[in-house]
């Protein structure tokens, strides 16, 4: 073994000792494709669910309140106003989620990208969505928390928010705090860690 090609020789010797892998049959392929399609759908639905669950809670709350207090003009107006503020945010979010989850590495007519371009495009796509989500959270969390506090106090607390400003503010702060904790944990898992990894790969390529 010469020092100059020690690595190459080691690799060849190791490969020679390896057992031949089992061939892939049509049945194996069908099983893998079925399992991956299921996994892809599950991942997308989990992602959509995680993204819109907060909105679902808000809409359920507003609908429930509207039905129960139908005829009470003040409550009805409050619910409709809250819905009108929040619906555009939900539409924007759903559109972005669809773009993020609907991507394919095999766009018709396009060649397979090299590793650098693939990582770069993954990074850009994910970073764009994360940027959008952060903006939405900054806007959506205080707005939805304010709606929940306002409606709850109007319905269940005598004097409403106007009569209990400190309690209203405390409830609002608590709601925002809980939302922020949940959003931060979700962001770390789905965005910050993966983006850090992709950035490291990109920096590694760009540094050379």
């Amino acid at each position, binding site marked *: 073994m010469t020092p100059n090609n020690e690595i190459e020789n080691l*690799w060849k010797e190791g490969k020679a000792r390896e057992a031949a892998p089992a061939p892939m049959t049509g049945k194996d392929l069908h099983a893998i494709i079925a399992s*991956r399609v299921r996994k892809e759908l599950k991942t997308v639905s989990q992602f959509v669910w995680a993204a819109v669950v907060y909105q679902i809670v808000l809409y359920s709350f507003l609908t429930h309140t509207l039905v129960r207090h139908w005829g009470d003009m003040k409550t009805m107006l409050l619910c409709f106003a809250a819905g009108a503020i929040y619906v555009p945010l939900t539409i924007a979010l759903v559109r972005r989620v669809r773009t993020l989850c609907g991507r394919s590495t095999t766009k018709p007519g396009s060649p397979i990208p090299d590793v650098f371009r*693939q990582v770069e495009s993954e990074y850009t796509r994910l970073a764009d969505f994360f940027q959008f989500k952060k903006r939405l959270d900054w806007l959506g969390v205080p707005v939805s928390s304010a709606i929940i506090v306002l409606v709850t106090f109007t319905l269940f607390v005598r004097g409403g928010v106007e009569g209990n400003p400190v309690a209203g503010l405390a409830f609002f702060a608590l709601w925002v705090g809980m939302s922020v904790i949940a959003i931060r944990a979700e962001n770390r898992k789905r965005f910050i860690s993966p983006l850090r990894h992709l950035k490291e790969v990109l920096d*590694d390529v760009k540094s050379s």
Partner: protein
Amino acid sequence: MHEEPETSFLANLDQNIRIVHRVCHTYFPRDAVEREDVFQDIMYQLWKSYPLFKGESKFSTWIYKVALNTAITHIRRSTRTPRYEELTESVACAPDLNDHMRQGEEFHLLHEAIAALTDIDKAIILLHLEDQNYDEIASITGLTRTNISVRLVRIKRALKNYLQRNQIVRREGL
């Protein structure tokens, strides 16, 4: 699933299935579950991309491209924290060498050393060891030939250092 593309896909794949296994072993050497998961992901991506394969490059080059793209971006879907060890750190934290006291120990050590490289360096050394030429490595990774050449020198030096240090430790251990 149409019969004809499936038959030709399986026939082409059969001659190159080792490539997929090697990529999986290189990127997920210690975690069999994750390795199986990425193997299935790569097979799925290969099948989905197969209609785009026009024969402009070698089938093996195309497989490397899809497999490496999938393996490198797979980590972001995993809930586990990826490992970002530097080579020097992994020398200090080298696994128990008693585990390697068997035939093929050096090959095992070589895999350990490769596992500690960055994702791009792993791709470069794997492609080089699998006899891909500089042009093929450049087209798969997106790096220039010069860049690959410089990196290969550095990677091989790092791998040799790792092997030498571990062989010394082993001899002293005995």
